[in-house]
């Protein structure tokens, strides 16, 4: 048995009531883990994409993809390879009482590519879109400044860079 590792799974599912519940219920009912979940529309009408991050060993991830494929309204399940292109959003409100902390924030933003959304005399709200590891690092960089609030989205994932991103088609499921 292998050690559990992080996997990103994209699910193309018909956008009708209860379908998301079937996916989530499958995970809770079979003891699979969900780290994060992102759901939105696709270029196909009446089709949603669910991007789900899970921790599982090889045997469990095989069951997860098979069980997802078995759901009647699931059209496609993609298990992304390690190193796939992924992006998530984090929004942080940081304490900012003096010129020194303003400079620190400016420097961190420049370094990481984060940008300021809004500010008051007492705090700055910044956002960063990056992969999970980079977002983790960004949060650690900001932590000493004092994080007043943090909201973090689930990641979305693409195919490998250069690979066709067109995956909204009704191709046969495995």
């Amino acid at each position: 048995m292998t050690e559990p590792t992080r996997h990103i799974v994209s699910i193309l599912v018909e956008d009708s009531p209860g379908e998301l519940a079937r996916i989530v219920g499958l995970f809770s009912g079979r003891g699979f883990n969900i780290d994060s979940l992102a759901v939105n529309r696709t270029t196909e009408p009446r089709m949603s994409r669910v991007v789900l991050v899970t921790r599982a060993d090889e045997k469990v991830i095989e069951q997860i993809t098979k069980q997802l494929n078995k759901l009647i309204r699931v059209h496609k399940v993609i298990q992304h390879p390690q190193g796939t292109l992924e992006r998530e959003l984090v929004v942080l409100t940081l304490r900012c009482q003096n010129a020194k902390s303003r400079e620190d924030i400016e420097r961190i933003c420049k370094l990481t590519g984060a940008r300021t959304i809004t500010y008051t005399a007492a705090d700055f709200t910044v956002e960063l879109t990056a992969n999970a590891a980079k977002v983790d690092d960004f949060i650690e960089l900001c932590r000493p400044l004092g994080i007043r609030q943090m909201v973090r989205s689930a990641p979305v994932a693409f195919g490998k860079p250069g690979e066709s991103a067109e995956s909204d088609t009704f191709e046969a499921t495995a």
Partner: protein
Amino acid sequence: MTANPSKTTSPDTTNGKGAIAPGPEGEVMRGARVLVESLLQEGVELMFGYPGGAILHVYDELHLQSERINHVLVRHEQGAVHAAEGYAQATGKVGVCLVTSGPGATNVVTGLANALSDSTPIVVITGQVLTTAIGNDAFQEADVVGITRPCTKYNYLVKRVEDIAPTIKEAFYLARTGRPGPVLVDLPKDITAAECAFHYPESVSIPSYKPTVRGHTRQVKKAVELMRSTEKTILYVGGGVVASGANAELKELADKLNLPVTPTLMGLGCYPPGHQQCLGMLGMHGTYAANMSMAEADLIVAIGSRFDDRVTGAIENFAVNAKKIHVDIDPTSVNKSVAVDIPIVGDAKTVMQQMLDAIGDDPAPERKEWWNTLTTWKRDFPLAYKDRSDTIMPQRLFEELADLTKGEYICTTDVGQHQMWAAQYYPADDGRKWITSGGLGTMGFGLPAAMGAALSGTKDPVICVTGDGSFQMCIQELATCVHEDLNVKIIIMNNNFLGMVRQWQELFYSRRYSSVGMKYFPDFAKIAEAYGATGLRAETPEELRGVLEKGFDTPGTVIMDIIVTKEANVYPMIPAGAAHYELAMDPEVYPPTTPESK
């Protein structure tokens, strides 16, 4: 973008029946009639149900259409769903169950879970409160699609009258294709009252649902090569063989490869039980030969079976030296609990035919040494018990039953010791004549399942083997049996105990019998009389045969209350978590040193 329609179109439009008269195409009617016309289009002749407020329009329509479709009134919704399962298992058609909202629907949940476990094709139609009341905690409202989502293959809440016909079409298609299973359709009351023009779709197209029927050609070829080159090989066959109607293919495959066959609890009857190549059932209470052959095999060929924990025993010690081939229509069953060497996703019948084609006229391997071993096991360690003259041994009851009926009648069971002894001794000569709750182990299944089987068109009596515990879980269905004048012969193996739990408490809890003794037990013969059935009782071995014969000679519903010895145990037994080769034999017959352990 749509998929190739030929791949996703329903192959047949009827529920196993011949030509169906076209429905009143285009006629404007209320939803309740759309439902009934749709069921008729699916070839439904009979359904089991119980009325209530939210389903009233449908019951009104059933009254109007009573010349065209039959409805059997049960006494509890659990009875309806199990009856639909029994009907489906006996016929291979889709069983239909109709109940009301709220408690009517929640009462069918056990049956849905049971049908999901045992891959039984049923369609359950539940009434629901008005669409305008959904979510408002209305009278008899429950979130039925929410409650039943994990115990159905698929479920629907119908929100427009125009959707009833296509939903029913799809529901039947999903129930009977791929790995069969239960489908639920929740119908709000206003939808059954609203009107629309009737239009029944000719085909079903679900681009995301394409069960694989034909096995991968190269995998089949590899499998056949392996099966021909190995010596100690065994066919381990389950309910999938029954569901796909592959008795003949299995028989031919076993012949052409000269292989022993062991059926699971769900596969009993798909291979002739008396055949010399049949080792009997395997698993927790399977035969010595079947279990030891799994432990010793160099190749296990699983067909329509799923390496259930009651079959494998301790998974880490399961057939460690054997290669495995697994044929199953459900891809999730493959590599789930046991890693297999050659997975083949496909229908059991189709894949076995592919295997037979690949074998052609090649001569069968001899397997002399293997057959020597198997024959020795069968001869030296048969099912056996120590009979007594002062009390009826349960095994004696099942031997007599087998001798009297020759396994020619449909036999349903409940769950517990009686079920295991019936599985060991009842020689069902067809998979559809053995109807039991295998996966879920639902006490209370037996009697309603027998009702469904008795209405499946058989002219023979239907046997319901049950225990004094299980029988009381759906005892109310006696009224349905008498009401419908069903030819059901109920055999109660009465030991005043919840016997299987007691057996575990005896063996693994130092005889601390916790809540298993039925201190008060009713007089089942008198209960039979009270319901208008016939009640008989046997208390001694001398009375046993006479009571069974009289019971089968008496028309209608009969209870045979057989008082058996209180503390008999089912053997062989693989204790939970042990390996096949650690199976325990009956110490009264086989002194503890006899089965050579490895």
